[in-house]
């Protein structure tokens, strides 16, 4: 009987501003090919890959049933494939349930998105709002984030200069992540001079448009042992919804993230971790989500930044989502980076002896839905 499941292999394309030279199928195949090579798996009827969980989005892909386009590339011809239509961290949540249920002992996860394809990311997220009571006033995820950021600054005394440092740090760390391309270093002055998008969020305080595909193999304990000598156990998962209308929410309470973290930590038997990968789509979300994950007290994000919290707690050592990841894959890329740390494969950004990690993703306006995934390697069990 399967009690646990582990990430056995991970793969990523490069993260670029505009992969004009390739389409979704090619990006996805690049990831699948890496995973097949590193695990030796195939698609044989009963022993090979038979259960695939994809992550993509009809509006970003401009295509109905966006997973149908990549069926061939993920190898789902006459196999099972299901698409998670939220932040990709929920694909890890779902894969864990598929394995623990006994329905399968092996899941291939592949997520793809080209944010450079739709004319405007903001237009896509504008369409997440309802036609009568939010779209008319022009709401989109950037506007919602602006309202959240303003509330957070007011509550915690967070300074723009502190967020400039968050951006500078993200890009410095990203330089140690070979997968991140064409992301120039910036100075705090550059950040503070970049055009204002939705006060107080400036352009450089927002994650850049990014094209990428990522994936992983998740397997039951029994199979994981045959697929890798560095299994990364999924020890806890949690997620939670908050309200939709921004006025129904306390935008700085972390209501949904605290619930998601509580559930994941309860399952994992504790919240301590050597590495944290949180999905910061905007600089202000780094300290805000840190509060929600329990890295510091409620309302103490600004103090935590000032005290060098991110480096003390090994937060986003590869640049985080702020260094560029497609919105819908933010959490999945964080899980992958956390897995690389726990496999000792994080190169220049490796935390020696890292045993346990926490990864996080969020979906919806101003973090309406959050997912938390707790991971541990053999040493961390």
């Amino acid at each position, binding site marked *: 009987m399967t009690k646990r499941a582990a990430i056995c292999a991970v793969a990523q394309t490069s993260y670029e501003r505009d992969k004009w030279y390739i389409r979704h199928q090619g990006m996805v195949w690049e990831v699948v090919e890496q995973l097949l090579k590193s695990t030796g798996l195939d698609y044989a009827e009963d022993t090979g890959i038979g259960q695939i969980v994809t992550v993509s989005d009809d509006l970003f892909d401009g295509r109905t049933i966006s997973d149908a386009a990549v069926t061939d590339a993920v190898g789902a011809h006459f196999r099972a494939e299901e698409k998670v239509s939220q932040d990709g961290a929920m694909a890890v949540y779902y894969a864990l349930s598929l394995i623990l249920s006994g329905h399968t002992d092996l899941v291939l996860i592949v997520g793809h998105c080209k944010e450079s394809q739709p004319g405007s990311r903001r237009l896509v997220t504008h369409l997440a709002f309802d036609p009568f009571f939010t779209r008319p006033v022009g709401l989109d995820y950037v506007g919602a984030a602006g309202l959240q950021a303003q509330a957070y600054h007011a509550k915690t005394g967070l300074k723009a200069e502190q967020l400039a440092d968050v951006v500078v740090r993200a890009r410095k760390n990203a330089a140690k992540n070979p997968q991140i391309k064409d992301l120039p270093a910036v100075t705090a002055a550059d950040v503070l001079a970049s055009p*204002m998008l939705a006060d107080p*969020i400036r352009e450089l305080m927002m994650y850049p448009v990014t094209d990428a595909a990522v994936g992983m193999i998740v397997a039951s304990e029994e199979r994981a042992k045959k697929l890798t000598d560095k299994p990364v156990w999924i020890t806890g998962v949690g997620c939670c919804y908050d309200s939709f209308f921004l*006025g129904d929410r306390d935008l700085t309470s972390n209501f949904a993230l605290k619930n998601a973290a509580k559930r994941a930590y309860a399952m994992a038997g504790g919240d301590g971790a050597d590495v944290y990968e949180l999905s910061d789509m905007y600089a202000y979300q780094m300290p805000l989500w840190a509060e929600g994950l329990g890295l510091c007290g409620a309302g103490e994000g600004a103090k935590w930044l000032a005290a060098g919290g991110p480096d003390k707690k090994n937060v986003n050592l590869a640049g985080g989502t702020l260094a560029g990841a497609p919105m819908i894959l933010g959490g999945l890329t964080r899980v992958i980076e956390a897995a690389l740390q726990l496999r000792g494969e994080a190169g220049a950004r490796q935390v020696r002896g890292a045993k346990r990690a926490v990864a996080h993703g969020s979906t919806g306006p101003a973090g309406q839905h959050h997912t938390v995934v707790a991971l541990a390697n053999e040493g961390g069990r």
Partner: protein
Amino acid sequence: MEEQNKDRWVVDGQLALPYQYFAGTVGSHFLTSLRDRKKILGQRCPTCNKVFVPPRQTCERCFANLADAWVELSDVGEVTGVTVINYQEKYLPLPPPYALALIKLGGADTPLTHVVAGVDPANVKVGMKVKAVFADERKGSLLDIKYFTPA
């Protein structure tokens, strides 16, 4: 990769389809009240004892039916949150920059997200008193309130 570029390019296109949304009975009552009576309505949830706006048929927390729980709200309110929109998109209600604000109307417990105009957006601050400015020609839309302006 140069020599292969002749096999790779990008085709400019679009995804365009016809849609027709329904506000529903409850939503329509809110919108026709704006249009016909220039009245902004909230709904009081009997169990949560909170007045919500914008309208919804049920309370998401206790499932109480709010379809007939209308209360009239003041068209004057207080800014409880604000951001200045400074980017261009075809769906914006006003030319940027303008203030997008959370506005707690008199009688409501939850702020309505709407726009503030008739003032330098940088001066729109939390706590500012604002008043609804109704459009002359109203069509049964949230933009029958053209914008809010300092009261």
